[in-house]
């Protein structure tokens, strides 16, 4: 039965429609694996088994009657940053340890309305701040992959590490993540799955707990590129409850799967060849370029000269917005509260206990860069850099259709080898943050392995609202790579 869990979302959907197997059988397959893979710690909150079985039976009844919706009976995992009605939503923080939202995020609602069943809420870095899933108040997540030469637990990446590990370990048919500086793509690369960060404004942020509002964007994390296309099409679209969501038509993304890339111009940005990039990754990037060329694409070297300023700019804008976004966790109305008789003590103690060290660090940085006397030097300058980066991308897209880069500078590192200083840790995001700063869509596709047999991903970047080009190009890489998805043993 575990074979069902290995299948892609598209295959499950097809099997359900053809009644090859039932939603209940799929559910049982995943539920069994949840028990056996509990040690990955991919979930913070699992939905109760009985409720899941009822949901699966309902799906089977609809399928039997021919009333199936697009995702009828498909079990998904949801990053614990999406508010889900009556299901605890923690954002990986002690601050929200007992928070049960009385409302549903727009995009989880869309998934529910399509018939998907939520297995549970996945583990994540606290308030999505981190690149290794070690800042979660609910314990670190372990990547199902192991290096060939040792047995050390590896990071799944972050911040959507729980979702990535859950998809990679076949604990769900697909998952939702959020990406503020690489939080979908980097864990996707580390866990050998596909992850797409859509264009800023493509998906509603309503009901998604904010990290940095101008950069946050939700997206699917799946085994295959087709699965990502299926999910993205469902969760996309304008939402009157999110003023920053775009009023732009959502294309039929799945139709792009297998479409030709003949004549497509692929840009290779020189500045992404950074120091410290693993040799295998350099080779993989070259191989990937070759695959696309062989499929008929034209390869064009491009320059994005401001790339090296992206990381510092990102680590100003992100904490600035985060420091303000997190002010609402003051212990007054909801969230963690330390009872005292003094107002300022209430604030200080509730926040001191509720937030972990990385969150506190970003609140401090953010408060600092927005302060009088520093605002111009940091925040305003960072916004100028952001505009420069955006402009350079727009210029580059005058001569190319899609950019190809690696997703992360290395493969997954061992959890006990995690960089101790935050700056080195932040370097993990160096290839992904530019995309968020520019609001562009980008996808990470599993494309190869390191010497130690751990996954590596390639990243494709497209102009605003051209996710269709990403799906088309990513399919080529996917089929050329024949990536060996993780299996036990």
């Amino acid at each position: 039965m575990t074979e069902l869990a290995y299948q892609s979302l598209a295959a499950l959907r097809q099997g359900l429609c053809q009644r090859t197997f039932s939603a209940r059988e799929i559910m049982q397959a995943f539920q069994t694996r949840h028990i056996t893979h509990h040690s990955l710690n991919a979930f913070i909150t699992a939905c109760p088994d009985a409720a899941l079985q009822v949901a699966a039976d309902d799906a089977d009844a609809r399928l039997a009657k021919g009333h199936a919706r697009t995702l009828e009976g498909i079990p998904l995992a949801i990053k614990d940053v999406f508010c889900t009605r009556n299901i605890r939503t923690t954002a990986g923080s002690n601050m929200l340890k007992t928070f049960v939202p009385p409302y549903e995020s727009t995009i989880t609602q869309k998934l529910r309305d399509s018939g998907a069943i939520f297995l549970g809420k996945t583990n994540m870095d606290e308030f999505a701040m981190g690149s290794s899933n070690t800042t979660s108040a609910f314990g670190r997540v372990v990547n199902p992959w192991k290096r060939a030469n040792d047995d050390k637990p590896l990071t799944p990446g972050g911040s959507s590490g729980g979702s990535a590990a859950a998809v990679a370990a076949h604990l769900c048919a697909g998952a939702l993540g959020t990406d503020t500086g690489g939080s979908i793509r980097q864990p996707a690369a580390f866990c050998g799955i596909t992850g797409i960060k859509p264009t800023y404004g493509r998906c509603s942020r309503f009901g998604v707990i904010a990290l940095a509002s101008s950069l946050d964007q939700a997206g699917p994390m799946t085994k295959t590129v087709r699965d990502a296309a299926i999910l993205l099409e469902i969760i996309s679209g304008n939402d009157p409850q999110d003023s920053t969501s775009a009023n732009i038509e959502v294309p039929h993304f799945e139709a792009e799967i297998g479409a030709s890339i003949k004549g497509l111009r692929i840009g290779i940005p020189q500045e992404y060849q950074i120091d410290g990039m693993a040799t295998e990754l350099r080779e993989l990037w070259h191989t990937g370029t070759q695959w696309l060329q062989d499929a008929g694409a034209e390869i064009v070297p491009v320059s994005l000269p401001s790339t090296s300023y992206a990381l510092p700019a990102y680590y100003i804008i992100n904490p600035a917005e985060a420091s303000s976004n997190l002010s609402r966790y003051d212990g007054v109305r909801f969230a963690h509260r330390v009872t005292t008789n003094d107002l300022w003590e209430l604030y200080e103690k509730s926040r001191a206990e509720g937030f972990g060290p990385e969150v506190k660090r970003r609140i401090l940085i953010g408060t600092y860069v927005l302060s009088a006397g520093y605002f111009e030097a940091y925040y305003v300058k960072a916004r100028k850099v952001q505009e420069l980066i955006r402009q350079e991308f727009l210029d580059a897209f005058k001569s190319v259709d899609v950019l190809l880069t690696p997703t992360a500078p290395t493969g997954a590192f061992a959890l006990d080898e995690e960089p101790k200083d935050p700056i080195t840790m932040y370097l993990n995001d160096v290839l992904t943050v530019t995309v968020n700063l520019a609001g562009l869509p980008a996808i990470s596709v599993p494309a190869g392995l390191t010497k130690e047999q751990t996954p590596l991903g390639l990243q494709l970047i497209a102009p605003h609202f051209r996710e269709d080009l990403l799906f088309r190009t990513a399919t080529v890489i996917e089929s050329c790579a024949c990536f060996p998805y993780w299996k036990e043993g």
Partner: protein
Amino acid sequence: MTIADPHHWEIVIGLEVHAQVTSKSKLFSAAATAFGAAPNTQVSFVDAAFPGMLPVLNSVCVDQAIKTGLGLHAQINPLSIFERKNYFYPDLPAGYQISQYQRPIVGEGWLEIEPIPGTTRRVGIERVHLEQDAGKSVHDLSPQETYIDLNRAGIALMEIVTKPDMRSSAEAVAFLKKLRTLLRYLGTCDGNMEEGSLRADVNISVHRPDTPLGTRAEIKNVNSIRFVAQAINFEERRQIDLLEAGQRIVQETRLFDAHIGETRSMRNKEDAQDYRYFPDPDLLPLRVEQNRIEHVRTTLPELPDDKKRRFMETLGLSAYDADLIVSEPEYAAYYEVALTELCQHNVSSSQGAKILANWFLGDFFAYLNRTNIPIDTTPLTPARLANLVRLILSNTISGKIAKDVFALMTEEDGSAEEIVTRHHLQQITNTSTIEQIIAEVLGQEAEHVAAYKAGKDKLFGYFVGQVMKATKGKANPQTVNTLLKALLDRT
């Protein structure tokens, strides 16, 4: 030591007025805004800043700000930006207030005031911006606890900032009254100061004329026009006293204590909070197209200044009367409905306008004050008052009888005409009837008539009084005069 001469000091005043925008729902949420609801019953998840909630701009509030800007002859900015003003307070759920900082929706404009009758003066408007109100902390329900009511949290406010153009408390008062009237005409703020719909921060400094401006103090949150005057007067005295004693003014925020009529220091510049303003990433820049402005312009009512001018120029009202009638839109509306009613009965407007104004501002206002009945619910409808005035103009009743009719109208149903008939109050104009009464009166007053004949002319007034008394005041006084004279001369 020199004797303090206040004439050597010039006082410089600027106002920041917070006006609650008239709108059914809040600035960024669909929650209701009605005053006086039970605590925390008009709060959405957005207002309470629950995780993942996002603000969505209420376009009605934007139109109201545009309308206000147009009423203030101001520039409407095609692009404005909502920013976050960050600070912690229990009644500020998000930990930041969404406001407009560097780019407000409305730019420079002006409002004309008339602090002394006949002398007008323009007060410059610096800007008007939109922002959220905070909730309310209630400290007096329990000795230990503070209660929070978020009904007000997120309600739209317009902050109207003047230039430092006012030079006395009288000018500041004139400005506030004028602004309140304007906002009420525009329908963009109900101007209800008791309910907190209009509050002012007062910036005030003193200096010698023709020298640089002095250091200013800001008096926060003064919630009545009377208190604004008191606060300014106190602050003016305090600052002049300090300067004359050779001391310096500290830049600070002060509070007005209405109980003692004084201001006291709240915090000085050093303790000033750093609000860390930055553009709110949850909201797009607000773009206002020219055609939207033009559309709002078509909804503007006749503004109080224009109305006053028209009342004076075409109706011949005095500036004083016109001012009073125009001061509240409900007054003007009542007066104009009554006037229209009057003109429908072939009364020319210039003929009726003045006498209607007298009745409206005289007996009618006195009645409103006495009874405390709101003008829009009084049983003395504009049609009824117009009817009364028409009876005076047609000589059906005298002005004196009209006062009695008015009093009866406040107690009885029916038109003035019906009341006059019911109580037989029609004026007696018939000559023979009056002659007969005069004859009867003179018949009973033989001694006085003799005295009159003997040269005691002053008795004429006495005879008039007796005749009026005999007719219960209903005889036409002119006719009585003429006929009495004739009859006395004949006898």
